[in-house]
């Protein structure tokens, strides 16, 4: 009876309500429990990380970058134990320095080595030739890559730790704390970093030399240490700014308020609720920080402010190659290509990570 009433009601032409009169009868069957259960079946559970990795795997540029980086890393770890030369030793023949082994070209042998080969001895080839002091260039490139890459990674980790802690505190507590902390960041931002690095390495050179003597750090040299200090002092600011921005926007979510309503401590809210939600930004920015540190290191080494001799880095190899550029261009080209490869691969990987993990682009 009631149904009839509805059917007779005049309908507005523009009404979007379901037209009940279209249904002949109202004896719909009720859903059985089993049918209701079917609605409960949900898709496979995917976590944020799995999801991101799946997308990353579909990105050919990022995958190629990962492969290139993996090859480079394996090479710098394994090659020093395969190649029988040392990065800081000139070629020797019969207990004295082999004068004929300087400035060899790619895959060339010195006279002394040719004699040994004729005598049936096996001599490992100089894949990239030798430098002006008769040191095997290939192994020097391997060591240079080692140094450059570790500088990049260590610097990125330092920047990450300092920037993360600083930015998270400023963003979370806000107000006066944020204001003061961010003005400090602004001041550091305005300092000319190159000038500061050059000044600091000159000053720190005297201070650090006695301190690091005899330790492994001495091998890297005081220049390198001052470079790390400068990275630690200066380069975290952009990371801190970025993280602060993220924390500011995430802390306005109701789940943070809900956590406070539960009675969760600030430290737990930061580590359990806020930081996991800016993880993608953290990973991406750190990945992009590595090439920028490698670049700075190369640039400084090229100016002669890098690692101390005889240790080398890709930048100082390029610097040394300047002298004989006309006759031995490959000595500049090889480290330059490797720098480009590493920087390009890390940048592409960083972009790939952003595409895969940044939820705003989904």
């Amino acid at each position, binding site marked *: 009876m009631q149904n009839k009433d509805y059917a007779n009601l005049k309908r507005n032409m523009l009404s979007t309500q379901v037209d009940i009169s279209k249904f002949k009868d109202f004896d719909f069957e009720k859903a059985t429990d089993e049918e209701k259960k079917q609605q409960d079946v949900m898709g496979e559970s995917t976590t944020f990380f799995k999801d991101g990795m799946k997308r990353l795997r579909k990105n050919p540029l990022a995958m190629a970058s990962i492969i290139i980086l993996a090859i480079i890393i394996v090479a710098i770890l394994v090659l020093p134990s395969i190649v029988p030369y040392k990065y800081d030793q000139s070629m020797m023949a019969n207990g004295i320095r082999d004068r004929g082994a300087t400035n060899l070209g790619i895959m060339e042998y010195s006279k002394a080595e040719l004699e040994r080969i004729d005598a049936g001895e096996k001599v490992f080839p100089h894949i990239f030739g030798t430098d002006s002091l008769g040191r095997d260039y290939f192994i020097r490139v391997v060591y240079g890559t080692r140094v450059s890459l570790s500088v990049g990674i260590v610097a990125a980790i330092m920047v990450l730790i300092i920037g993360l802690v600083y930015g998270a505190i400023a963003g979370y507590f806000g107000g006066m704390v944020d204001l003061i902390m961010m003005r400090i960041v602004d001041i550091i931002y305005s300092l000319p970093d190159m000038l500061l690095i050059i000044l600091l390495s000159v000053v720190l050179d005297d201070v650090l030399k006695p301190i690091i003597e005899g330790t492994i750090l001495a091998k890297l040299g005081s220049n390198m240490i001052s470079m790390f200090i400068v990275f630690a002092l200066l380069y975290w600011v952009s990371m801190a700014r970025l993280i602060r921005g993220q924390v500011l926007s995430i802390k306005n979510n109701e789940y943070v308020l809900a956590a406070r*309503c539960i009675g969760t401590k600030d430290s737990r809210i930061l580590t359990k609720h806020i930081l996991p939600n800016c993880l993608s930004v953290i990973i991406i920015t750190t990945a992009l920080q590595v090439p920028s540190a490698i670049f700075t290191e190369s640039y400084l080494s090229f100016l002669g402010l890098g690692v101390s001799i005889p240790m080398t880095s890709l930048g100082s190899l390029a610097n040394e190659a300047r002298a004989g550029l006309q006759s031995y261009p490959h000595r500049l080209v090889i480290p330059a290509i490797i720098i480009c490869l590493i920087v390009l691969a890390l940048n592409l990987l960083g972009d790939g990570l952003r595409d895969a993990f940044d939820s705003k682009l989904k």
Partner: protein
Amino acid sequence: MNNNNNNEYLLKVDHLKQYFPVKDGFKTLQLKAVDDVSFAIRPGETLGLVGESGCGKTTVGRTLLRLYQPTAGRIEFDGDVLFDSGEQYDESGKMIVDATGKPIRGKKIDVDMLPYRKKMQMVFQDPYSSLNPRMTVEDIIGEPLDVHNLYKTKAERRERILELMEIVGLNAEHAMRYAHEFSGGQRQRIGIARALAVNPKFIVCDEPVSALDVSIQAQVVNMFEELQEKLGVAYLFIAHDLLVVHHISDRIAVMYLGKVMEIADADDLNNNPIHPYTLSLLSAVPIPDPETARNSQRIILEGDVPSPLNMPTGCPFRTRCKYATEQCAAEMPPLKDRGDGHFVACWNK
């Protein structure tokens, strides 16, 4: 000393004020989100709180849970004073001032909330942003248990979580799922389970159904009622929909621009509304029966809601009220008992 009172009310809010500083160019203005609100809730009772969007309902809920630091007022819960800014008020609700016009202050009280977080909880308005997308259901519901050390062994924790999921009607198999995999109604259930985890005596339900589909709204409202019967919790049930509030509430408070205009028994308010604002709210409720709907006269409010940054003097409703007189512009009407606990703040009705 005042045992009688303690037994009667679980929560008592007096002259609560929450002003937010808002920057306007170089000036800092005060946004009076909640301005002198008083009410009380008995154990196991539901007080409905209705009002237009932006009238300060959420702010009342969050301030009395001390998620915001109150600007002024007094909050008493379960016999303990949680917050008291110290102002004294006389019988008619006027602040007692000394000769120079400064308020006479009593003792200030501001307690550590952690032990009370076990007794009062909140269900949030937006089921999408109130659950951390990086946490599983188990971790979300388990967090209050972790924070308050409510279990001895891992197995005990898990058992309690599954029990809570069952209470709110969630499938136990979904404990390891992430919040973003659930529908709005299921998410709201997760939020409710989280609030129930500590066995609270009082829950602020901040429009818990307004973000949900109409078909699911009824289910969730019914669940709130069942939970109340089973567990004896008291609710402050916030909504802008009078129908839902009338269904679940024992008493209803009507808010307008940060002030309470009328508090009464749910049925009393529905059948015998007094305040002009309540009248207009009731006439805006869609009437299911077409015949009555045609015969009833709608009171259509004219004008816009004034900005809370720039409130009218006296009664905040006077810019839209057809009964407004000069007295309304001069002074805010006090909330007065019109018999049977029906309180109204109006000069002329």
